């Protein structure tokens, strides 16, 4: 084959590639007129994914356009979140984010790297659920109440270990908030995800775990784990005897693994309004309620100003927490 035959077409292809941008041109139609993507930055089968699917179905009913769940995983959610932060603010790309959305940019700042995205790049639409985290230990362990646990931790600093889903992850930050609030020092063993963190506790390799209730409830019912206290504002419905850390006198230990709907900043206000309406209608839908019941996830709907206040307070708490944790390696 002669060089020329191939070089010319190759150059033509290269020119084509160079000439066309990746972002498409703008279209003007009433919203919504095309299918919508709900980006879930976590792998299928996880808490975020399982929450997103009923949400997508409910919003689809309200907006009368197909809403498809797209899993864009990676970097503890950063990949999917960055993707939505940089996509066109036309209301066709939405994000279902967990509370880690406030943590990741702080962690980036901590390490001095340009943040993958910032919280300002999103326009909050609505809060869907807010799972209070609970503190779980094995039934064989000596601590029967949260008080005993904290006192023991005070007597033996850095001896009691706990697992988490990853450093600066939601389960880690929950424990850190408690540690700072109660003045105790615990030993942190990060794992790659909530599943391995639970396995580690069950296997006796760590002493405690902060976890969303849906994951540990079956184990508690089976008598393998014991819940000591919760990080929520109120007690968990399925565990009415378990006090909250607030009740026990540690108000800084407030943490929720919440799931919220976001759109890229700059999405036109009428579109946002329609989305909020759709979210409100969706959350009231009986099928949605049934789905969330099966998942043991309580619905905690907030939108507009209420959500923004909740979100900002939560973000501030988490940012503080991340800064206090600092860079682990420098200790």
């Amino acid at each position: 084959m002669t060089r020329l035959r191939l070089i010319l077409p190759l150059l033509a292809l290269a020119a084509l590639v160079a000439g066309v941008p990746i972002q498409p041109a703008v279209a003007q139609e009433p919203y919504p007129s095309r299918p919508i993507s709900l980006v879930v930055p976590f792998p299928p089968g996880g808490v975020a994914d399982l929450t997103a699917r009923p949400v997508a179905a409910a919003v689809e009913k309200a907006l009368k356009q197909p809403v498809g769940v797209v899993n864009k995983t990676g970097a503890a959610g950063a990949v999917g979140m960055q993707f939505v932060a940089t996509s066109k603010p036309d209301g066709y790309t939405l994000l279902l984010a967990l509370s880690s959305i406030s943590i990741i940019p702080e962690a980036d700042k901590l390490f001095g790297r340009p943040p993958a995205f910032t919280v300002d790049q999103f326009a909050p639409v609505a809060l869907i659920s807010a799972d209070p985290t609970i503190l779980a230990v094995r039934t064989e362990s000596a601590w029967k109440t949260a008080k005993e646990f904290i006192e023991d931790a005070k007597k033996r600093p850095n001896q009691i270990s706990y697992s988490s889903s990853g450093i600066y992850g939601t389960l880690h930050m929950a424990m850190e908030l408690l540690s700072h609030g109660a003045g105790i020092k615990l030993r942190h063993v990060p794992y790659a995800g909530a599943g391995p963190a639970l396995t580690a506790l069950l296997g006796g390799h760590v002493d405690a775990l902060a976890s969303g209730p849906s994951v540990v409830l079956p184990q508690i019912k089976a008598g393998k784990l014991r819940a000591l206290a919760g990080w929520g504002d109120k007690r968990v419905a399925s565990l009415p005897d378990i006090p909250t850390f607030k009740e026990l006198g540690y108000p800084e230990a407030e943490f929720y693994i919440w799931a919220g709907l976001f759109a890229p900043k700059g999405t036109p206000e009428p579109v946002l309004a329609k989305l909020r309406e759709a979210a409100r209608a969706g959350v009231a839908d009986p099928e949605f309620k049934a789905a969330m019941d099966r998942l043991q996830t309580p619905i905690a709907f907030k939108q507009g100003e209420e959500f923004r206040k909740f979100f900002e307070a939560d973000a501030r708490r988490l940012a503080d927490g991340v800064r206090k944790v600092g860079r682990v390696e420098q200790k």
Partner: protein
Amino acid sequence: MAETLQNLALGFSVALQPSVLLYAFVGCVIGTLVGVLPGVGPLAGISLLLPATFGLTATNAIVMLAGIYYGAMYGGSTTSILMRIPGEAASVMTCIDGYAMARKGRAGAALAIAAIGSFVAGTVSVIALMLLAPPLASFALRFGPPEYFALLLLGLLVLAYMSGGSMAKSLVMAVLGLLLGMVGIDQMSGYFRFAYGLVELGDGLGVVPIAVGLFGIAEVLATAGQEVPPTVLKPKLRELLPSRAEWRDSVMPIGRGTGLGFLIGIIPGSAHIISSFVSYAVERRLSRHPEEFGKGAVAGVAGPESANNSATSGAFVPMLALGVPSGPIPAVMLAALMVHGVSPGPLLITQQPELFWGFIASMYVGNLMLLALNLPMVGIFVNVLRIPYSLLYPSIIMFCVVGVYAVNGSVVDVWIALIMGALGYILRKLGFETAPIVLGAVLAPMIELALRQSLAMSDGRYSIFVSRPISGTLLAFGAALVLFNLVSWVVRGLDWRRRIPLDEKGENL
């Protein structure tokens, strides 16, 4: 025992219902398709079809998902053998000897042995699952970071047995693989390593892009421009099935692969790809003709393929007995259960006997179905090799791109595969083996995490590795292995190993 049989009877009564059979069949077919397509592995298949199962009953859903998982394991060997592209990461070892067998005209035999080995392994491991699930699960839970570290260290030793040819060259490739595994977010400290601002690299380069690139794309690059197109001996119908000698050679590897794979599969978190690597190494070590490995040794296909399949059943042990996800795929299946209102946990077996036993019974049925699906298809698949290579290789590239893209929907993965392809091509020309790179890339993040977690647990004391019984035993075993081999290495000399490379050098294929 009587109770088990009773339960099994219950299970079969569930599994043989027409609707359950139908969903098992649908799952197996989809799984085979998914497995046959390069790069699109069982995880992708299950995740994508998870939403489709929301409308089904819990039993049907889980039976279908398990069918997809198994089917993908069966189907993954097909592209490995026919085109040297790993159907999923765990089929990498089959690429080596399976493809060599295909080149010798024994593609049908290789496919048949892979199918039968998978069937035997699948069935036997389901029996083990059925009888031993709860006690095995409790044992598996005792594997913490120190035990993982010891186990994975043993896995690294396996590398020594994978190599033919220069030990230094295989080791250096393994170290290269280990370094590639360092890319990504450091789980213990939160630092991004070698990611150059690309968030997509946060979880590492990815085993699928690396494997597909190093094997599939590199193969295309090396073969496409050949002066004489690769000649494929077109087998007659009779020659499609394995010969008596080949059957004999595959019996023990299948047995060993089954046991090994199941044990490795039970341990939560361990990658199944390791089971096929370990099986390959064991077979090579125990074989009377180790020089055949790399050139089409039957044991090199039978062992890893069986190990693969029984690791799949092994992975269900912690999932069903404890409600604990032992990897991403069981995690998705647990999620499917949760969505249907079945709360997974230690009480699952007792509270939902129809589900558990129906699931077990449908796995028997599924294995049978897959064997029935795959064996006759051997003839069809072999005909793929008749397609002129000039048309075949562009299709291969296309499938590789789709497979790699499908994992995360990310073009970055496609680029990684392409760069690995170029690297694999150059390494082949320079006479280096590429399989150790894949093993290294898989093991590196796991070993490092296990070591640092162990040290975090013990606050920096290395004694934790010896004070815990399981890890102490594993390490002692490893040390004994190393000593034994050093001695025999000195005694026997390196002669025969130097003469037999794992992979062909150059282009005389």
